């Protein structure tokens, strides 16, 4: 359940709460090369991802690593026609800008997994802001916590994952 939001938020930010924003589709192919890179980065030898026979037996063919769910929506740092770097979790960056909190870290993250994501899938995601706290001071600085979620479905409308994040945006003291 979302926390109650602070009373001193800018009206625009207040209007975002409980609203679906940034409906997006994956902008690059979901394929096993990316999975192999994550497996290599974490030295993960799970044969489900390395052995086609195991994948066929257990999952009816190759699947991607479930915890890579957010990777599929991270935009290219540069692409033709783009004048500024695109950022993932745009809602998070909008909050930083609108609340005047230039630095931020993520403190909590929950992911609930559904249908496995497979190479060739086309995914759609939406972002939802649940709450924004009053001003708080931590060892990093003074700022606000915000709680927001991301839903991801595949081309069949099957829920692949729901993510929930808590971010802390701050000014260094």
């Amino acid at each position, binding site marked *: 359940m979302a926390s109650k939001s602070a009373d001193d938020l800018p009206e625009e930010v207040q209007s975002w709460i409980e609203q679906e924003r940034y409906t997006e589709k994956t902008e690059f192919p979901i394929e096993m090369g*990316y999975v192999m*890179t*994550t497996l*290599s*980065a*974490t*030295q*993960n*030898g*799970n*044969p*489900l991802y390395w052995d086609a026979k*195991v994948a066929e037996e*257990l*999952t009816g063919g190759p699947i991607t*690593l*479930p*915890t*890579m769910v*957010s*990777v599929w929506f*991270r935009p290219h*740092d540069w692409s033709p026609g783009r004048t500024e*770097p695109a950022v*993932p979790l745009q809602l998070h960056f909008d909050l930083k800008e609108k609340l005047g909190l230039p*630095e931020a*870290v*993520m*403190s*909590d*993250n*929950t*992911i*609930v*997994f*559904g*249908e*496995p994501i497979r190479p060739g899938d086309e995914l759609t995601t939406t972002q939802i802001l649940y709450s924004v706290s009053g001003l708080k001071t931590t060892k*990093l*600085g003074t700022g606000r916590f915000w709680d927001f979620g991301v839903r991801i479905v595949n081309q069949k409308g099957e829920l692949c994952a729901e993510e929930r994040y808590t971010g802390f945006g701050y000014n*260094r003291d």
Partner: protein
Amino acid sequence: MSADILLGDVSVGTELPVLEKLVKPVTVVLGAMASRDWRPQHHDYKFATGNNGLDDIIMNTPNLAAWFERYVTDWTGPKGRIGRIKFRMKDSVYPGDTMQFAGKVTGVEAGAGGVGWVDVAIELSAGDKSCVGCEARVAIPESAEANPWSLKGDAWKP
């Protein structure tokens, strides 16, 4: 990686084997690039320390999630299917840290379709520093014939 464990092999209090990994700068950068995270605090020392007040570049959250997944499925074997994972960031992981993943089973329950659920609490620490607390809920088979990956729709309730 273990052969697949079965629900009957597990009880509350079962400890997972500890995993240790020395973090080098390449560990941080490789993980960030693998997760398509181009933000400078994960590859730019001057930005991480000068702008963000950190001690060095830091491991990014999506890659840490993949490390937690690796740690759990090293124990369960390939049939282990993570249903839910929650983590709380407490402190940053820097180059020079030795990550230590230590998990313990906190719950075991039978489920449907020959598949049961195991709850695991995992602590990621680096020396005396507690970095991330994680709770994972993973589906594992009750018998050698069962397969958690076969559950779909309403049968899959993480």
